[in-house]
């Protein structure tokens, strides 16, 4: 090639190439940050994840740079192809990793495979660009120009990523946006090139990748949900993280399910069995249940049962998470499930930590329904202690009856009977009972009262599960669920959390 006359297309090609260094540097760092962030998000331990992702990425860049020596022929069109490939891999990287996470058995393999592939491609870019530009600038100027734009691009990316991209776009959209930036470099170069050097297949590939990235950008929201669908195996209709829990609602052919932190809370198909068993053995034993206290139960399903009893004047419901009670009050589909109980003037909702609330609470309740998540953690374990039951007993009127959701007596018999032992240690009389709820399996409850537990007086008509004839069966335990000696669950021993983990562990793998 002779010294080029500075005609217009040549000048603009040099400018576009230098600009592309900036874009390419920015995109390259963004993909690296995406992989690191995603890995720490999905695998935890961000120090390890970030450092191994960065290490693998930089190493792969070195491999790419080294491989560039074997690249021969038309450097510019090879550079364009590299850009198309990076745009596809990098642009889809975040979405692909999210989708793959629940599907693949070894997520690290997918992660590092992708990181190495992108890294190697990015490592090819700068050597190729330097070779393309070597006849357009003096060497001194060339190195200065390329490295300047490269470093500036890195700065742009590292500032944009935490301040703007992650908070505003999220990880998946950020990937697509920078994939589009990469592909626009390829398309701009293709358009500037004289027709003779333009490859129609390259242009078609570039446009195809562009289309896929734009589609991905618009489907980002749905992509995120699909990845949860893979986890839940049912279509997710609502998902939200509150400060306290991850709430996910799914629906499949009319069956609505609520999961908190991945644990099933109810299935609309059979929750009536659970909630009738939770509520009616209690209300059916209280002479006049005017005041009812519900601890937990933010889905309003227990409140729905309680409100059927016209004797009940007021339901006081204490649930930690305002988002939970708001969702089940304001979403028509969900409010229909609880019969709009949370909007009833007879229900007052307090969003508070029940452990603190009972300590401050005054007054007397004729019935108390305690419906907390299972004692999977020490914080929740406090809600099953002798100390807590003493506070609840203080709020239980003479002649009042309470019940406690007490996990599965079949899977976790020691944990189940620990609740009865603990209620007794708190000075109450206690009685375990159980019901079969298909989506849960065999499930247990523990009833308690100040004196002897009164006999069942009546049940309302129209219940689907309980009748005066079937109710006594709830109290019969075959040997595999029969009562056994257990320790008292106290704040200072947290015996229940330990036995719960031991008994449920084998079932959760």
């Amino acid at each position, binding site marked *: 090639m002779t010294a080029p006359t500075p005609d217009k297309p040549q000048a603009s090609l040099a400018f576009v190439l230098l600009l592309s260094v900036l874009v390419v540097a920015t995109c390259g760092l963004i993909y*690296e940050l995406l992989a690191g962030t995603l890995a720490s998000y999905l695998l935890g331990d961000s120090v390890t994840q970030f450092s191994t992702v960065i290490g693998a990425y930089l190493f792969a860049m070195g491999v790419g740079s080294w491989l560039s020596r074997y690249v021969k022929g038309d450097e510019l069109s090879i550079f364009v192809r590299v850009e198309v490939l990076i745009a596809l891999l990098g642009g889809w990287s975040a979405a692909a990793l999210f989708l793959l996470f629940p599907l693949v058995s070894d997520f690290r393999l997918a992660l590092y495979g992708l990181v190495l592939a992108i890294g190697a491609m990015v490592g090819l870019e700068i050597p190729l660009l330097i070779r393309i530009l070597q006849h357009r600038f003096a060497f001194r100027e060339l190195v200065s120009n390329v490295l300047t734009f490269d470093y500036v691009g890195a700065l742009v990316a590292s500032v944009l990523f935490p301040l703007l991209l992650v908070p505003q776009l999220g990880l998946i959209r950020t990937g697509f946006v920078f994939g589009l930036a990469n592909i626009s470099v390829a398309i701009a170069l293709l358009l500037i090139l004289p027709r003779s050097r333009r490859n129609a297949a390259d242009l078609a590939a570039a446009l195809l990748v562009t289309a896929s990235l734009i589609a991905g950008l618009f489907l980002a929201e749905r992509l995120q949900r699909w990845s949860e669908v893979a986890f839940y195996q049912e279509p997710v209709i609502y998902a939200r993280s509150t400060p306290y829990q991850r709430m996910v609602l799914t629906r499949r052919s009319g069956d609505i399910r609520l999961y908190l932190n991945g644990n099933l809370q109810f299935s609309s198909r059979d929750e009536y069995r659970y909630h009738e068993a939770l509520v009616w053995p209690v209300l059916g034993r209280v002479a006049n249940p005017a005041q009812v206290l519900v601890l937990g139960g933010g889905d309003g399903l227990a409140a729905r049962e309680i409100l059927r009893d016209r004797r009940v004047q007021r339901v006081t419901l204490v649930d930690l998470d305002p988002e939970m009670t708001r969702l089940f009050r304001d979403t028509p589909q969900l409010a229909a499930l609880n019969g709009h109980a949370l909007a009833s003037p007879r229900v007052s909702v307090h969003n508070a930590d029940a452990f603190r609330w009972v300590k401050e609470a005054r007054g007397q309740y004729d019935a108390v329904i305690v419906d907390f998540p299972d004692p999977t953690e020490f914080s929740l374990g406090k809600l099953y202690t002798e100390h807590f039951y003493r506070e609840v007993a203080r709020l239980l009127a003479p002649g009042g009856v309470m019940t406690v959701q007490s996990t599965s007596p079949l899977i976790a018999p020691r944990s189940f009977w620990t609740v009865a032992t603990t209620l007794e240690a708190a000075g109450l009389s206690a009685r375990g009972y159980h019901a079969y709820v298909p989506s849960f399996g065999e499930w247990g409850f523990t009833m308690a009262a100040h004196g002897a537990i009164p006999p069942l007086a009546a049940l309302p008509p129209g219940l689907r599960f309980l009748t005066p004839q079937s109710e006594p069966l709830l109290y019969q335990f075959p040997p595999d669920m029969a009562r056994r000696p257990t320790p008292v669950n106290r704040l200072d021993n947290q015996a229940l959390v330990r036995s719960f983990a031991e008994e449920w562990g084998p079932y959760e793998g």
Partner: protein
Amino acid sequence: MKADRRGVLAGGSALAAAALLPPGCASSPPFPGALSGPDMARGHRLRDGRFPAPDGPAEERVGIAIAGGGIAGLAAGWRLLEAGFTDWVLYELEDEAGGNARSGRNAVSAYPLGAHYLPVPNREARALHQMLDQFGMVTGRDAAGAPRFDPTQLCADLEERLLWRGKWQEGLYPAAGLSADDQRQRDRFFAEMAHFRTLTGADGRPAFASPMAYSSRDPALIALDRQSFAAWLAQQGYTSPPLLAHLRYASRDDYGSELDAISAWAGLHYFAARRGWAADGQGDSELTWPEGNGRLAALLRNSVKGHIRTASPVFAARADGAGAVLDRWDQQAGRAIRTRADLAVLAMPHFVARRIAPALGAAPAFSYSPWVVANVTVNRLPRGPGVPLAWDNVSAGSESLGYVVATHQTSSAGNGPSVLTWYLPLSRETPKAARELLQSRSLSEWQGIVRNDLLTMNPDLDGAIDRIDLWRWGHAMIRPTPGFLNDPARRAAQSLKPPLLLAHSDLSGLSLFEEAHYRGVAAAEAALRALGHSFTSLL
């Protein structure tokens, strides 16, 4: 270095430059917070003898004057009132009595500034048991008479977790990745400690007791004091790195010192003296509160209300005829006042007592380890891979002792704002060099250190820190250096006769609540005996 990096980047791209900086290395953002500590101005004025002598004769007369309102001084006062003796006054240098057990409070929670728990005391700690009972911490007794402690005042969470190999595990001893030899040494060490725990000396006393004054004086056991814990471990063939790291943690936790700086007797005391006496298996538990031992300090202050004069540093004390004379600076009145007492109890660290009472002699001062305590207000609770948050959270890879969670007893929410109390004993440097470091570092430097350490343990706390308050303890803990049991200076201090008595955990050589309490009670009983006041001993 710079050229190397450029060389690497020239072949590729500058991406690395930004990416290689981990988040913690960026200059740390300033947080709201305060840099505080014991009143250094008053302390140094006392050290330098810059208080003017009072003019004229003694203005006040009192039966017993207690100088110093840490746990020892407060316990002495509590003991006097228990015996029905009311003619006494306590003078405190700071604006609030409580010493190492003081606490702070903000909108989120109360929090400790120093000591944060009291293990359920041994049966031999009779005075302490009586005090806890009196403070309403005992809800009942079992058939054998062992106290049943109020569960809301005991640790109510997973007690401790350790960040080990990128994952949180239960307990403070590494559970994974131990070689067969590591496991053998661990089992041998803890079996040996179990043996020491039940061992009795030739004099019939337990080998190691708490308070330590009840320990056996069997020469075979006392001989352990002649060597360092590090030397004893080496001699016994304990070489396992995880074991030594764990023991180093323990030594820094209780004594603020490295393994070679403490006596083997003190090292073994940590593991072999604890036999908590309580019903329902509570003996292994800890009494703790959001404000840490600030609760005990407040209850003690309350029990001796009306007897405490704060902001009143005693700067001179001497025997005078049958009684004692004390000069103190009254910060509020801005003048010195002289008090004549039948008897004076100097309830202060020994390095201070020696300055104000030259009669104690010029023996070299005991040595003290400096500490930094940070209270970090967070808007959400820490998490991390592995077991969930515990009360005490320690990283095997950190120089700090980790953090405790102030709100662990009061919430079942599993999230929400809290205060994390972070501890760092400056044990690597000599105490003097460490104290210089303590003074020279700025608030934002300390905040940067605390933040980086916390984020390395819990990257999930990024963005969750609302403020960091620092508390510097120049002389936080007496160091039980080899030979401390038979140190002539300590022996002389223990056997002081009226009208001047000493009361401080320095006399035990172990900076523990039980020791301070014991020394306070012992001084009070010695004072009552000297004054002919009748009482039944609690010792």
